[in-house]
């Protein structure tokens, strides 16, 4: 999965689940302070990202350090790379 694909799908989650205007979805946008998400939204963000990317991140400690959209992009890309490496012959 390319970074562009991750960005597109992640931004779609923010548009669909949190009704955030596309223009605000810059990599440096802070998800709490600038995009207005709160602790309950984070639960739904995790559910939505899991569904979109077919990953399991609910118990992943790295979720706690996410602050910006770019943090999410990087986290998802890392997960996808880990997935690739785990594949037989990968």
């Amino acid at each position, binding site marked *: 999965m390319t970074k562009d694909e991750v960005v597109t799908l992640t931004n779609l989650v923010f548009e669909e689940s949190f009704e955030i205007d596309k223009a605000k979805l810059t990599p440096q946008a802070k998800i709490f302070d600038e995009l207005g998400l709160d602790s309950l939204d984070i639960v739904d963000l995790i*559910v939505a990202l899991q569904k979109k990317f077919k990953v399991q991140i609910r118990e992943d400690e790295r979720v706690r350090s996410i602050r910006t959209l770019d943090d999410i992009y990087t986290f998802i890309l890392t997960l996808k790379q880990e997935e690739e490496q785990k594949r037989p012959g990968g």
Partner: protein
Amino acid sequence: MQLRRVVITGMGSVSPFGRGVTALTDGIEAGRSAVRKMAGWDHYIGLRSQVGAPAELKDEKLIPRQSRRSMGRLSLFAVQAAQDAVDDSGLDPALATTGRMGCVVGSTTGSAISISQAFETMLPDHDLTKLSSMQFFHCISHTATMNVAQYLKLNGWVMATSAACASAMHAMGTGYDLIRLGRQDVMLCGGAEELHPTVTGSFDVLFATSVKYNDTPHLTPRPFDRDRDGLVCGEGAGILMLEEYEHAIKRNARIYAEVIGYHTCSSGDHVSESSRPAMVTCMRESLQEAGVEAGQVDYVNAHATATLQGDKEEAEAIHDVFGDKVPVSSLKGYIGHTLGASAAIELAASLAGIRKGVLYPTLNLQNISPECQGVNHVMGTALQREARIIVKNSFAFGGISAVLVCRVMADGK
């Protein structure tokens, strides 16, 4: 202890005729039926009743996302009706945060759609990780009242009543008591409900639904009629603002009516069969509290859902208490049975009609059933008549009876 007086100063509803009490009475006055054949319900095995009275959800996106996210369909209806009741009352919204204003909003269950979705999400793989954080808030029994309170920033008493079809009546009775006792000055009271195959299905398995009119939905339900065959579920919300009398007078509020009596009781003998003696007791107790004789009552707005047994028991009970002179009608022929919302929606419609000098007829009542004779049915056309004292009946599974008595007021008198 001197009990305080309680008046109704605001009304809001979302009904199968749309948002607003005016839309509701417009539909009734046009003699329309909001009952439809429900698309997709034929996919359910064993669901014999294919009709319902859906309400249209509109403008819900005007509610900010962070407020809206915890609202299932019935909470959205409740919040819209509550906002309309506040607007209708002209009350200063600042009162919301004084601790003297609260709400009691009931429903049979939490959002039926959300409950169904929660199980559909969780059960196939027994996997909880796919559940949204909001699913719980949509499904809980006090979802409507909690959302109304949060949306309007109420920080007084917030409670939910859950007595199936009598939920809104229990809510109004509770609000009435809280204000009478001086605990609160203003209470938003009522109920909300949503239409879903599981809701109609719960009545259908008990053979309480209408099944013969799936291809002619506008002809059902038929309260008190010879050819009635059961209830039709509807949805929506009704919220009435109850306010302490002096408080309302001081701010020069428009007063629809004074609540002068309320009673609720159980039959104590059967969970689903209607009980004429319990209904009689409930009506008599509420009249006694109101300090009025049965002969002084000008109108009874019946619960009458068009079930075979319920209508019979209620007609007989009304006859026992009021004889055959007091005009009686049911509004469920127009909008179906809005269950936990019904008492508030129907009381709002009745009071709005009475302000125009009319008592609405029972739609689809063409031939009075022999077992529902003995009362003065309003049928065919509206009755042009001034009404001062009115009785609202509400009954529910579980042997619940609840009755409210109101004195219609004009200019605060």
